[in-house]
């Protein structure tokens, strides 16, 4: 019964310890008393443990159906399935914030534990920075947005989790997204440490490389889960609507992707130092913004932000402090890095990365502009506007095509520069292959839309250029080590996990892009009324409405239609779209029936009865949607593979360092 008080108490302890974590290292460094820094470290461990207890306390309150806890009463009910009770923690604003703070606590403890002896100069600042962020969150949680509040008159039953959140996609979407958002706090803190210490070397990049990769992977996965959820739950046949809430997670992803590439340039060539600092600070700031905005709904409407004026003002102040402090440090301290290495040639890997960064950041800006423009218009004056999908299709998609083209050229380039002839010799095969494919698509598949043609061209271009590069490397290995094809290629992939993991990610993105364009351009939609026995033809499919009956779930009842889908080749499936009514919610919820195939999805939404035996249906044939999910899986596998790369890479690159003299950490062995 007292779990929530335990959680509350643990959070108070965590706040006190977070303040210690923030202050003690400062004292330690200023007074040259290393013991104080150690105090900060212990405080960070206590924060992690205390927040873990807090999260456990809230989760147990959910499991125990303790409706005297306001947060539980608002986000759970007696009939809520166990799985959703376990995860209802992030079903609302208050719990999500606690979850965020908990993740940050854990990450901080891990980072301190891992980097304590290897980065003695950075760790104190890292402790302070992360302590400050956690403090900011815990103050918000404890004073303005508490999940620990008790109700004086507890209801008999809770009001249940929002039915739309009762879906596996939504169970995984927030935690992955947050693992990504929060993960960027670590490289962010290391970057600030570099700025504060005035030791802007490559140390922070190297130290946080895996944090960056990990966070990027989590953020990507989280975004895909969100899209998957939208596709399955919202019932409009699509998965991405350029909704402000979606954009809020996508903008940091774009910037993080730029950072992921440009930090390689710094690692190898000691260039883009300032730029990298800028990117990681921006990524983390946008992550913070994303966290707050999504939950408070500022972006879709300013008004919700102010739903609790105190909370809004506090969040704004917190953001202001974080942004001004970090960007201020960047502006006033980054002059310490003097010798930037200059770009030697436009035909080099670093130049490709430069342009990749340029376009990714511009892409992020276009999305940001589209997202904030309505807010600006409303604030500055009068009109309320929405910026819809057409804007993003016109602006964002072409920019992404350029990024894809750069991705295709990437493997052919070498660091520092190369002869134009050599590049031309390498580029013509993929170019030719891509052109042939695009031509075939134009003449035989009847693809007419320019985006379709360009997409097929680029997909093939990237795939062939990556394949050729890999093939050449395997051949070299086979000759050098006198091995067969399979041992050689497996050796190669194992030896250079980072490179080939990256290739896998690239191919995943290509597959996803094909999915995006396919489902975006060739979707077929029908909205009609069917009586039992009626059929409708979608592509190769003949869909027959065979019956309707009621079904019962643990906390809902539904009308379920039976649709038999058949093809000429004898494939036969039954689709069961539902119209659900949850016990505690009067609003019906649509449960679309989706049948996924390699080339297309059949997606059926049940509407309302129009008359006795006639029901309204909305049907979609969505080509290539499964490619989007498949590509995302490839991407996740690729990044996991990259993460397995040990530290060997780092020691190798020291040798060819041509940049400014490295200030190698003395304690770094």
């Amino acid at each position, binding site marked *: 019964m007292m779990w929530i008080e335990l959680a509350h108490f643990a959070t108070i302890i965590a706040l006190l310890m977070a303040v210690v974590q923030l202050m003690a290292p400062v004292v330690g460094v200023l007074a040259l008393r290393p013991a104080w820094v150690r105090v900060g470290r212990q405080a960070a461990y206590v924060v992690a443990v205390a927040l873990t207890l807090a999260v456990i306390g809230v989760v147990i309150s959910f499991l125990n159906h303790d409706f005297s806890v*306001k947060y539980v009463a608002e986000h759970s009910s007696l009939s809520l399935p166990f799985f959703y009770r376990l995860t209802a923690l992030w079903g609302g604003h208050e719990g999500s914030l606690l979850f965020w703070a908990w993740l940050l606590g854990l990450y901080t403890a891990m980072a301190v534990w891992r980097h304590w002896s290897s980065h003695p100069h950075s760790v104190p600042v890292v402790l302070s920075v992360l302590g400050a962020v956690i403090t900011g969150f815990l103050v918000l949680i404890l004073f303005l947005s508490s999940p620990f509040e008790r109700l*004086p*008159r507890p209801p008999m039953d809770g009001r249940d989790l929002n039915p739309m959140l009762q879906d596996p996609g939504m169970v995984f979407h927030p935690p992955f997204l947050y693992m990504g958002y929060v993960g960027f706090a670590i490289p962010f803190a290391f970057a600030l440490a570099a700025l504060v210490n005035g030791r802007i070397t490559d140390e922070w990049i190297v130290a946080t490389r895996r944090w960056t990769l990990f966070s990027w992977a989590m953020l990507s996965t989280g975004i895909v889960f969100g899209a998957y959820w939208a596709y399955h739950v919202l019932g409009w046949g699509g998965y991405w609507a350029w909704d402000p809430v979606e954009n809020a997670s996508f903008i940091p992803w774009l910037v993080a992707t730029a950072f992921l590439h440009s930090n390689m340039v710094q690692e190898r060539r000691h260039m883009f130092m300032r730029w990298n600092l*800028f990117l990681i600070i921006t990524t983390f700031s946008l992550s913070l913004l994303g966290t707050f905005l999504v939950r408070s709904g*500022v972006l879709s*409407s*300013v*008004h919700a*932000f*102010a*739903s609790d*004026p105190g909370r*809004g*003002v506090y969040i*704004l102040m917190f*953001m*202001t402090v974080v*942004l*001004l402090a970090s*960007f*201020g440090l*960047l*502006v006033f301290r980054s002059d310490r890095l003097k010798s930037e290495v200059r770009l030697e040639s436009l035909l080099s890997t670093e130049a490709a990365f430069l342009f990749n960064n340029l376009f990714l950041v511009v892409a992020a800006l276009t999305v940001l502009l589209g997202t*904030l423009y309505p*807010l*600006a218009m*409303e*604030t500055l004056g009068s009109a309320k506007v929405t910026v819809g999908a057409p804007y993003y299709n016109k602006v964002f998609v072409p920019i992404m095509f350029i990024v894809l083209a750069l991705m295709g050229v990437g493997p052919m380039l070498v660091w520092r520069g190369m002869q134009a002839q050599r590049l031309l010799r390498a580029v013509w095969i993929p170019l030719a292959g891509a052109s042939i494919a695009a031509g075939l698509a134009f003449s035989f598949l009847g693809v007419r839309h320019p985006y379709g043609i360009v997409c097929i061209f680029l997909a093939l271009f990237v795939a062939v250029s990556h394949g050729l590069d890999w093939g050449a490397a395997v051949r070299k290995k086979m000759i050098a080590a006198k091995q067969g094809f399979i041992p050689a290629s497996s050796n190669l992939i194992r030896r250079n996990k980072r490179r080939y993991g990256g290739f896998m990610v690239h191919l995943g993105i290509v597959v996803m892009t094909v999915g995006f364009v396919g489902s975006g351009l060739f979707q077929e939609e029908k909205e009609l009324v069917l009586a039992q026995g009626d059929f409708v033809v979608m592509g190769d499919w003949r869909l027959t409405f065979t019956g309707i009956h009621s079904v019962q779930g643990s906390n809902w009842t539904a009308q379920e239609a039976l649709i038999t889908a058949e093809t000429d080749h004898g494939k036969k499936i039954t689709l069961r779209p539902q119209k659900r009514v949850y016990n505690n919610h009067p609003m019906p919820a649509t449960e679309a029936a989706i049948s996924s195939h390699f080339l297309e999805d059949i997606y059926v939404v049940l509407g309302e009865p129009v008359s006795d035996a006639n029901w309204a249906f909305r049907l979609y044939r969505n080509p290539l949607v499964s490619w989007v999910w498949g590509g995302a899986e490839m991407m996740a596998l690729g990044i996991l593979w990259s993460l397995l790369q040990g530290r060997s890479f780092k020691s190798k690159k020291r040798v060819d360092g041509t940049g400014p003299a490295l200030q190698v950490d003395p304690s770094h062995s």
Partner: protein
Amino acid sequence: MEYLWKIVLLAAVLFILGLFASGLGNDSRNIPSPLIGRPASVFHAPALDDGPEISLESFRGRWVLVNFWGSWCVSCRHEHPYLLQLAKNTAKRSDFVMLGVDFKDTREGAKGFLQALGDPGYRQAFDPDQTIAIDWGVYGAPETYLVDPQGVVRYKQVGPLFNGWFEKIALPLMEPKHENR
């Protein structure tokens, strides 16, 4: 050139922060009520405390603050201390009276609320089936209306009243009218 990026960067950061700040201030929850500037819809309703029936018309000639609340409403809890204080501070004014409307509620619930948090002492109408609230176009609780001596709605506050609300918002509306008369 060297300083340009710094200025641009800081300006951009400040701009975005400013945008949010003004978005915050520009609290568009003040949905302009179609009732403002129009006669408030009159009502006769039972009192929460089983006293005589309450009628809005009986307050003609005085400014009336009508506060819609319910014991189920969390924000009302936060608002309550201010109402207590306001009732105490304005008790001596002859031109101003406060009135509560407890809607969609049960008598026990509402009485429990007042017992627990303090009874401000002004009259409370009881509106269990929300008829007054619907007539007045109440979207949520708490909502507070300021009705002038002629029975015309002059102001609508969506969400809790805040400290200093009376001085900042009600008085300026009330005073010029005095001078006119």
